[in-house]
């Protein structure tokens, strides 16, 4: 396998609502690939082929076909659990109908727990921590925060938002039976212009904490409206670091926004190098998709282990594979293909001596406040994996 080129089709939105995120991720994938191409355990070269799926499940399938036509055997995708679910099924069907031409799907960011539970599939591997895992970490953190008394759940009305709300209601009471849920709202995805009514509602509920899976402008506008109305609550978020949101958070949100993720902006070691290298190359962008590192680390180790780049063998090698990544040792759990890894809670604050990295050049940063070993966020799975053969 040494010297082979491994083509990975990146199927995600480059245009539309999630276009900016997608563009950032392509850069991230390519940037980290360069690093790995200089040196990796399998001695292969990675090449990223970006294909725009416009965030649509149907377009994703077209993109998959097009990738397969180009001889690609590895695909990665992550923005949008809808597209991810479609891709899982499509890849499964393809592999079943075209033996010998199997394709592996590495999911870099789609976090719907179903993908490694009821919908789990042998050809799918997930690198991000799923909604329930992140919620475990988040609630464990909240457990020790006495000021959390009344919680409001505000989420986008689609699968991801539903999951966040569901797991919050499942997990938080276990850890903090005293916490009250004072309200819950689902708002339409990416079409609310004015969050003031929701803010008024939160205010009326007397909440001191908001848990939200919102991303993009849905999060920026929410925080902005809360600031404007003088709403004094803390936001526990999943995606405050995604392109565009930090800029909108600005000084007003400092100290009020928490984020759960498997990385943060002020990491040292490999991640630190990549973060600053990335900034040097793209002054306007941040590296926040850590799974762009995982993917090469895992694949190259698996390929070395399998001594092949054949997806069938690599898939087998990936199962249960442990490797060292930027956030410590990670393990691709065999039972459900969910990566087990360290998670961090970080908070939005002004850069200081310890946390120097200025996110989106705002002078503010996500500073780590808590680190959780993989076992903390590890959740059981209901997956009954069908393995080929």
């Amino acid at each position, binding site marked *: 396998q040494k010297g082979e080129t491994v083509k990975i089709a990146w199927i995600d939105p480059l245009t539309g609502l999630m276009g900016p995120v997608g563009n950032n991720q392509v850069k991230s994938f390519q940037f980290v690939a360069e690093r790995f191409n200089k040196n990796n355990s399998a001695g292969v070269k990675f090449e990223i082929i970006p294909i725009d799926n416009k965030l649509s499940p149907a377009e994703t399938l077209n993109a998959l076909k097009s990738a397969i036509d180009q001889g690609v055997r590895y695909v990665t995708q992550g923005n949008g659990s809808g597209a991810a679910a479609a891709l899982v099924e499509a890849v499964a069907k393809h592999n079943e109908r075209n033996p010998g031409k199997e394709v592996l799907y590495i999911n870099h960011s789609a976090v719907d727990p179903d993908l490694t539970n009821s919908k789990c599939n042998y050809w799918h591997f997930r690198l991000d921590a799923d909604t329930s895992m992140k919620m475990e970490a988040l609630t464990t953190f909240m457990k020790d925060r006495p000021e959390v008394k009344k919680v409001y759940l505000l989420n986008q009305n689609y699968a991801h938002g539903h999951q966040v709300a569901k797991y919050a209601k499942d997990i938080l009471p276990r850890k903090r039976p005293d916490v009250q849920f004072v309200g819950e709202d689902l708002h339409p995805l990416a079409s609310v212009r004015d969050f003031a009514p929701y803010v008024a509602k939160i205010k009326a509920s007397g909440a001191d904490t908001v848990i939200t899976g919102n991303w993009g402008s849905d999060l920026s506008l929410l925080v902005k409206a809360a600031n404007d109305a003088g709403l004094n609550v803390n936001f526990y978020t999943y995606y405050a670091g995604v392109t565009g949101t930090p800029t*909108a958070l600005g000084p007003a949100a400092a100290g009020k926004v928490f984020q759960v993720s498997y990385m943060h902006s002020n990491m040292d070691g490999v991640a630190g190098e990549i973060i600053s290298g990335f900034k040097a190359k793209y002054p306007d962008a941040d590296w926040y998709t850590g799974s762009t590192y995982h993917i090469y680390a895992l694949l190259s180790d698996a390929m070395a282990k399998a001594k092949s780049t054949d997806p069938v063998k690599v898939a087998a090698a990936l199962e249960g594979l442990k490797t060292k990544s930027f956030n410590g040792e990670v393990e691709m759990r065999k039972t459900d293909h969910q990566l087990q890894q360290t998670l961090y809670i970080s908070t939005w604050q002004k850069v200081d001596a310890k946390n120097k990295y200025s996110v989106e050049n705002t002078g503010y940063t996500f500073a780590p406040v808590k680190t959780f070993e993989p076992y903390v966020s590890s959740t059981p799975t209901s997956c009954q994996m069908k393995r080929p053969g």
Partner: protein
Amino acid sequence: MQIDQILINLLNGLSSGLLLFMLSSGLTLIFSMMGVLNFAHASFYMLGAFVAYTVTGWLNFTAALILAPLIVGALGALFERGVLRKVHKYGHVPELLVTFGLSYVALEVVQLIWGRIPLNFEPPTWLQGPAFTLIQRTGQGLSVVAGLASPEMCQSVGDMVVQCTRFPMTRAFMMMVAVGMLVALWLFITRTRIGLVIQAALTHPEMVESLGHNVPRVFMLVFGAGCALAGLAGVIGGVTFVTEPNMSHIGPIIFAVIVIGGMGSLSGAFVGSLVVGMLQTLPLTVDSSLADALRSMGAVVTPDTVGYPILRITLSQVAPILPYLLLVLILIFRPKGLLGTREE
């Protein structure tokens, strides 16, 4: 719910309605007069915000508030002159499609120039902070303080719970401008013959020209004016909310507004905007669903009940689609809209 909450909700509804009016007034101007359903209207709104951002960088916000609408208006006029005018003779569907095409182009061009991520378009200092603060004290009722209330005033003392709610300056300003727009437009329409000229020119352009009116210029002017209004809305929307390419996705709701209000009627657009603004805002505060309503009437509703998925949806969840429901109902029962005068 407490008084201050009711008040703030009404204010929110009102201000969101007034923002809609800023957008629909330009659209209605163009639509009612020229019959062009300008699908690119929201693009001009977006453009207004971006242009203002840049102008603010060069000069200051006040200059942007004046210059950006003018620039956007000029661009609109240019589009009318160069493109729309050519298409006019083919009828309304091509006109609509050409604006549809423009909305794609505008979005891409904006993204090329200003990038794809939200810009940090901060309101100027005089627009920052709250316009007034509502203070609700248990037992004492409501009081209003201009500007920011001091933290002491918002401190709960003993049993007395004090709640402060701020109303941001940007929103207050937005409301003021919208009302100003209404007045200016009303004067424009009633004090000049331009509206008549255009209406007449829609069906009989040659005749209007024969009476000595420069029809093409009037069309250009009106289109430009409509776009300038969108641009002005954009400047204010940009600082109040976010300045990003997604701004152009407000889309169909403003069509709903002008249809509900009555096509071609300025007062209709105004009333329609307020109705839609309220309709989008107020139901958000109600968390009960049909299922709850049935239960309160004594019926047993469980997840196994037929139609539970529908019964389960709360009013706050359907709030965003209520305007469209109203739109369809209005069109069925009162096709000319609330204040409209024309049938078709």
